[in-house]
């Protein structure tokens, strides 16, 4: 298994506050990497660095190196929009556009120049199928996406991200706003998706990390404390702080 993303000595500041400190991590492809750690430890910040969504926040300063498929993503001349097309993102709160289900899915492909109804129809169906929601909403493609349940909305957002054929899917606590049944569906979905995609998922839920991830990275106060096989991390953590966190002694 080769690494699709490699991160070297990554530091990030919001103004003068350092949010990430010397992060070194390699993310293997076709696997699920879970990021765990207490609130405010920099998980979302790290995730947003990978597709350069942090660029949008004024006052952010980044040093170090992030390579995606061997290419330095901060190098001048990198097409940020193409990077974001390759590295898709699913947010904590389901955020479908206030338009029809169909238009939500077709938004990305249209943005990247795909026209023609047949082609788009095809992409919409494939993406919804990949996100395991086709059967539920195939009769409601013309309905406003805001009318779906929270769990459906989140799977719609996953489908929307898949529609632009990304290589990597970043998910920031995708189930934290959902009920247990919807959460179960998204977890199943994530496990199925790793055949085709690489997934990096932030989760607050330790069981979730155990259930679905292959690697786990434990963040604390902006540092990557420990990173390794999920099984190893949760059974024989090396660092005392990791042990304290996963046994629920703080967090």
């Amino acid at each position, binding site marked *: 298994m080769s690494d699709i993303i490699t991160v070297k000595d990554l530091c990030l500041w919001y103004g003068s506050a350092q949010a990430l400190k010397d992060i070194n991590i390699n993310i293997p492809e076709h696997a699920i990497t879970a990021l765990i750690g207490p609130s405010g430890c920099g998980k979302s910040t790290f995730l947003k660095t990978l597709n350069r969504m942090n660029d949008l926040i004024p006052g952010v300063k980044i040093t170090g190196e992030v390579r995606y498929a061997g290419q330095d993503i901060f190098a001048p001349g990198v097409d940020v929009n193409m990077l974001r097309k390759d590295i898709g993102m699913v947010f904590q709160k389901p955020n479908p*556009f206030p338009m029809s289900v169909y238009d939500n899915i077709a938004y990305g492909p249209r943005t990247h120049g795909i026209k023609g109804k047949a082609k788009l129809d095809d992409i919409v169906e494939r993406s919804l199928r990949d996100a395991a929601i086709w059967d539920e909403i195939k009769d409601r493609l013309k309905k406003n996406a805001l009318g779906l349940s929270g769990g459906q909305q989140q799977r719609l957002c996953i489908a929307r991200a898949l529609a632009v054929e990304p290589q990597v899917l970043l998910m920031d606590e995708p189930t934290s706003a959902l009920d247990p049944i919807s959460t179960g569906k998204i977890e199943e979905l994530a496990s199925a998706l790793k055949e085709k995609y690489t997934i990096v998922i932030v989760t607050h839920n330790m069981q979730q990390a155990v259930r679905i991830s292959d690697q786990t990275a434990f963040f604390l106060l902006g540092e990557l404390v420990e990173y390794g096989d999920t099984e190893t991390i949760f059974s024989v953590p090396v660092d005392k702080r990791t042990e304290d966190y996963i046994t629920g002694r703080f967090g």
Partner: protein
Amino acid sequence: MCLPMKKRQSKIDPVTGGSDIRPPVLWDSLMKKQAFENFIYGVFLLLGLITVGCVLLITVYLIISGIPAIREIGLFKFLFGKTWASTAKTPQFGILPFILTSIYGTAGAIALGVPIGFLTAVYLAKAAPPKVKAVVSAAVSVLAGIPSVVYGLVGMLVLVPGIRSIFHVPDGASLLAAIVVLAVMILPSIVNVSITALEAVPQEYEDASLALGATPTETYFRVSVPAARSGIAAAVVLGVGRAIGEAMAVMMVSGNVANMPSLFQSVRFLTTAVASEMSYSSGLQRQALFSIALVLYLFILLINAALNFFLKRSKEA
């Protein structure tokens, strides 16, 4: 608004929370407080009713004074007559020129002002650096505060001669001049209301679009603007209302002649038709002016209904 609040208070006593035990010392002052509250509610209600009363008074007055002339002239002849000659020997009272001028003038102002105002709003709400935004917003506020007679004056001194020399027409005081002045006058409302609508678009929508690889510009126009469309529609309708109701500035630049509308001809609007003859009018002529005001009023009511519709929709969205 006031009444239900009063009811709620009397249902559950704030001191006892509805229980039967009343602290006897507090009861007295509570009664006093309640009486004072009731008094204040009464004052609010009265003040609210003043507004409603004004609307009712104007409506009833306009209907009563506007109907007789229409009766005498005939509704069809009045609305669709092409000639207005109120002081001729055999006077004619057709207001189609005014109606069409008001409609064309407003449509022209919208066609010119909305694209400019809308794009300005998108830029200010989404793309402008804070300093630029501050300067432009200040300019927009100043524009909103300029009295219409000043617009008219500048239009008369700059625009009218300008049109005459650019288009080589005998008189620059024309529908075109009025359209340009109106377009500038409605800019502030269009910009401000559109900005409010655009700024209310949740950041999450824009993040989602950017994360799919859309550029910021694509994001503004394909996500933010559609999400704000009801508010933007409200801005346009507000502009329509301002344009159709404006009298002073258009009177000064439009030549004020009751022609059928044509871009380079002097024209007269519904508003200016009333304003320019009222002072010396009498008899049927005077009554007909009231009827014109009634027609104008109906237009405004219609626009208001549209505005409410869009505002309600944008709140729901």
